[in-house]
């Protein structure tokens, strides 16, 4: 039947479901032993050129976002450090390992900054940490660690030696070399000398210096930074760079508070911590983590005010007061310099809700990036790959501030970053830009527009004459399917189920009725009644996860479950670029909060606006406007994607077979 197996006569044990590709286990096997050991292996790991391999960005196939795991990590590290009676090379080794692993972030230094002698250590690593951790593509912890890396010393030597050296080389500088150089450089200025101290601290000085001493050092650094910051301009990315120490230092007071649990062996603690770091990337910023939120706010372009009265279960999600930031932003549009105007425009549109729908948002974002790349020029003494990635990170974090990204946008950004990373070194700047722009255009054409056409072709075969199709909300793919089926002369009726507060179904209803389709419009309250009529349910998707869970507009799960109870087949239409390799079990961990007022205000209720006001101030009353929910895979009969009609159990197959090929992760 098949080319893959040579001798079919011998049945083999088959791995079913999601497993990572053949390349990965080998990389893993080479790395895994190192993780479990702490000290001795450090030399080999740090000198091996890991940074140019994609393994640095390997994302574990199954990642469950633990709440505040970040702080957990830090505390566990703190425990490890505090419990150490003897010099502990472990954390340091890990730091270095990660720092090298992640050469891209570490290597992207800013020579002018470092030459200033003062130390607002402008590591881009710090910046990318924030932007990226919000989004969850890279492990922010490692970036954070890289930020605590000896910026001053490292910077100086490398900047002097080879300012535009490609980052793999920087990253492969062995640890001992670095420390040597730092030793040479130390003494140039006060702030620089403190830096190496701090760098050595985890390795050898950690036990020598007392906590008080270390604290004093930190305090001094902080003061220096504050001074630097005061004089510096408060541009968005600048401010992001301006407080690099904080991330590493913030949790340190915790160290005192924590009891030194000597029973826990240091080695295992370190190993566990490493495992955690490597396997569980942070997926989203947890908004109930005060310190991180504050930090994020400092470099935010958009002044968002958190709403006060939030539902407790959803504290980890961002919820802002609506409506007050838009005028501010629109007036800023002429003075901004860090965010490209096209990206800014898209951000504003997202914020104002002018663009809704995942495909539309994704296309708008990609086109804005295209514009931005066209206008981009590499600053002198910088590398296009690194600098552009940083720029994109900045744009992305701006977009996140405007509105949390959807999964599909995440995949698109990941694609773009991979394209940037893959650019051949010898390509000239205009060529590189042109290639990137065409890549983005290709992505839009192939993955979104063409995919939709393929989906329509597939889905139409499932519509027979005389059927009643039920759809929920507004999905552009479903709209295309219905219109096309009508066009080719199928006789069917459409039931549009809608829900407050967005009432997106009305848009669909308007478009279908003008084209002459027979429609019924109802609200979701009537779903159990109207489902008796339906013979097929067509749903759109925001994303589909590896376990087949559908992540879509809130209310979808309800429709799917009722359909299942009535044994009506549920067909989900989703482009393959929205498939995500994560696993989603509930709609609490990953979700988005909408405007709570939208739930509170009822149009026909406006005469009693006063009544609402009093409701608004009631502390015992919280409004919850969830945007998405998750539908378990057993309620889905079929997924129509650009790879054909597949059962929900085959999502991991598609992700496994095609992610690597097309996006080259």
């Amino acid at each position, binding site marked *: 039947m098949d080319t893959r197996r040579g001798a079919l006569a011998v049945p083999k044990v*088959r791995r079913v479901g999601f497993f990572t590709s053949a390349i990965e286990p080998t990389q893993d096997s080479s790395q895994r032993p190192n993780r479990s050991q702490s000290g001795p292996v450090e030399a080999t790991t740090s000198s091996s050129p890991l940074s140019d391999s994609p393994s640095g960005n390997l994302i574990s196939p199954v990642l469950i976002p633990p709440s505040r795991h970040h702080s957990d990590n830090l505390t566990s590290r703190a425990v490890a450090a505090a419990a150490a009676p003897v010099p502990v090379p472990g954390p340091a080794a890990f730091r270095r390992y990660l720092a090298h692993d992640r050469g891209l972030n570490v290597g992207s230094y800013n020579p002018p900054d470092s030459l200033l002698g003062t130390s607002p250590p402008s590591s881009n690593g710090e910046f990318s940490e924030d932007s990226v951790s919000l989004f969850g593509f890279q492990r922010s912890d490692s970036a954070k660690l890289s930020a605590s890396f000896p910026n001053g010393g490292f910077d100086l030597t490398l900047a002097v030696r080879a300012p535009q050296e490609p980052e793999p080389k920087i990253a492969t500088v062995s640890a001992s070399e670095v420390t040597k150089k730092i030793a040479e450089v130390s003494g140039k200025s006060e702030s620089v000398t403190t830096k190496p101290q701090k760098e050595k601290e985890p390795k050898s000085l950690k036990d020598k210096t007392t906590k008080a001493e270390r604290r004093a050092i930190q305090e001094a650094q902080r003061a220096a930074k504050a001074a630097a910051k005061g004089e510096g301009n408060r541009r968005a990315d600048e401010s992001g760079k301006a407080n690099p120490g904080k991330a590493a230092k913030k949790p340190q007071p915790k160290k005192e508070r924590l009891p030194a649990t000597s029973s826990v062996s240091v080695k295992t603690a370190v190993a566990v911590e490493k495992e955690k770091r490597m396997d569980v990337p942070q997926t989203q910023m947890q908004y109930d983590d005060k310190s991180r939120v504050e930090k994020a706010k400092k470099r935010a372009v958009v002044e968002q005010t958190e709403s006060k009265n939030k539902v407790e279960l959803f504290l980890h999600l961002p919820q802002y007061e609506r409506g007050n930031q838009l005028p501010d932003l629109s007036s800023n549009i002429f003075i901004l310099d860090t965010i490209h105007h096209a990206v800014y425009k898209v951000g504003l549109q997202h914020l104002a809700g002018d663009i809704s729908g995942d495909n539309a948002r994704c296309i708008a974002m990609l086109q804005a990036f295209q514009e931005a790349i066209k206008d981009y020029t590499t600053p002198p003494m910088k590398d296009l790959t690194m600098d552009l990635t940083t720029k994109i990170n900045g744009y992305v974090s701006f977009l996140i501030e405007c509105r949390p990204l959807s999964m599909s946008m995440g995949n698109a950004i990941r694609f773009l970053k991979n394209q940037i990373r893959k650019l051949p070194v010898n390509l000239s700047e205009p060529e590189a830009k042109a290639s990137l722009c065409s890549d983005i255009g290709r992505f839009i054409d192939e993955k979104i527009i063409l995919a939709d056409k393929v989906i329509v072709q597939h889905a139409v075969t499932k519509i027979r004459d005389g059927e009643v199709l039920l759809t929920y909300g507004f999905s552009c793919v479903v709209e295309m399917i219905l219109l096309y089926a009508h066009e080719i002369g199928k006789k069917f009726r459409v039931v549009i189920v809608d829900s407050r507060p967005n009432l997106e179904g009305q848009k669909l209803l308007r478009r279908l009725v003008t084209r002459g389709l027979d429609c019924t419009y109802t609200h979701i309250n009537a779903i159990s009644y109207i489902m008796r009529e339906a013979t097929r349910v067509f749903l759109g998707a925001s994303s589909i996860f590896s376990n087949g869970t559908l992540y879509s507009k809130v209310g979808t799960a309800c429709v799917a479950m009722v359909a299942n109870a009535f044994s009506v087949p549920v067909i989900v239409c989703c482009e393959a670029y929205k498939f995500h390799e994560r696993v989603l079990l509930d709609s609490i961990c990953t979700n988005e909060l909408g405007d709570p007022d939208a739930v509170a205000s009822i149009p026909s209720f406006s005469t009693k606006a006063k009544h609402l006001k009093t409701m608004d101030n009631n502390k015992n009353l919280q409004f919850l406007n969830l945007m998405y929910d998750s539908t378990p895979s057993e309620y889905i009969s*079929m997924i129509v994607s650009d790879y*054909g009609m597949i059962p929900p159990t085959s999502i991991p197959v598609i992700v496994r077979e095609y992610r690597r090929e097309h996006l080259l992760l």
Partner: protein
Amino acid sequence: MWRRSPSFILDERRTSSSPPMADTTRAPFQNPDSISAYYQTRAAHHGVITSEWLSQAQAAVGGVSGDEHPISSLTDLGDGKSFNVIEEFNSWRKQPDLAEAVAAIRALAAVIRASEATTMMELEIELKKASDTLKSWDKTSISLTAGCDLFIRYVTRTSALEYEDFNSAKSRLLERAEKFGEISCKARRIIAMLSQDFIFDGCTILVHGLSRVVLEILKTAAQNNKLFRVLCTEGRPDGTGVLLSSELSKLDIPVKLLLDSAVAYSMDEVDMVFVGADGVVESGGIINMMGTYQIALVAHSMNKPVYVAAESYKFARLYPLDQKDMAPALRPIEFGIKIPTKVEVERSARDYTPPQYLTLLFTDLGVLSPSVVSDELIQLYL
């Protein structure tokens, strides 16, 4: 199905202007062309189904027949232009041990052999045309369609561009075609071997339909001196169960014949259900002889495992959502007494069993859970 909707009264009124439903439905009843050719072939095979063909099947496994027939098709080649896929296919199809798909595969291999194309593209087009004719010859046969598709995929997927010389490329294609045919022949034997671990001493097996794979499995189990009992459903209207039970009794396997409607009654003494399949679809469900679905439902509700034995060339890129979502395969049904013309008769020969009611699929690729079918299909087709 849409009749369930309250609006059907409205629809009824709309359709009432058109000629009465009964006429349109009865029309194909008299039309013999609408009867599924697939089931005609099966019925023809049932006539000759004896222990003889089993030994013949054994011979086929030995690869003997694989050698003798290429010669005959080569003599066909002598006729030149008059070479016809359908004829070739039919000549292969006459052999009762050969599944339809394998016959199609053999016929397509003969097409390559007989082809006078001089370029790869030409050959591919010719092959495509031949497979299309075969497919259109009997649209109701899922395994035929699937077998043709798989053959085309398997054969043309080879990087023929590597070969500079057309003749070497063509011989490579032929080689692969032969290999594919051989694999398909061996499939039944592999499945029989794989399934032996699941049959334990003292178990009772419920069998529905006359599947050559299931028969092979039971036969192998008997040869391995396993002690088990078989319950056969009657298999109306073609009486497949009766045939199977007589076959099994020849092998000294204790057999009990059931009415099709007695499945639920005797389910609690059953340990496992074995069924064959006409086709395995993308969702992992199967399309099989009418009655499989209800047996699977009963077995599922009584927590009995349902095992499906199917060769991998039956994997089809179909995705039925419900029973009516397939091209119906119709067949004549004898009731013994005269049915009044006003009475409608459900003549569909097969039904669709969704994957959640199946436990495992025994295929020549291994013992698979239903969700792996899609995995296999995706890897093969995309």
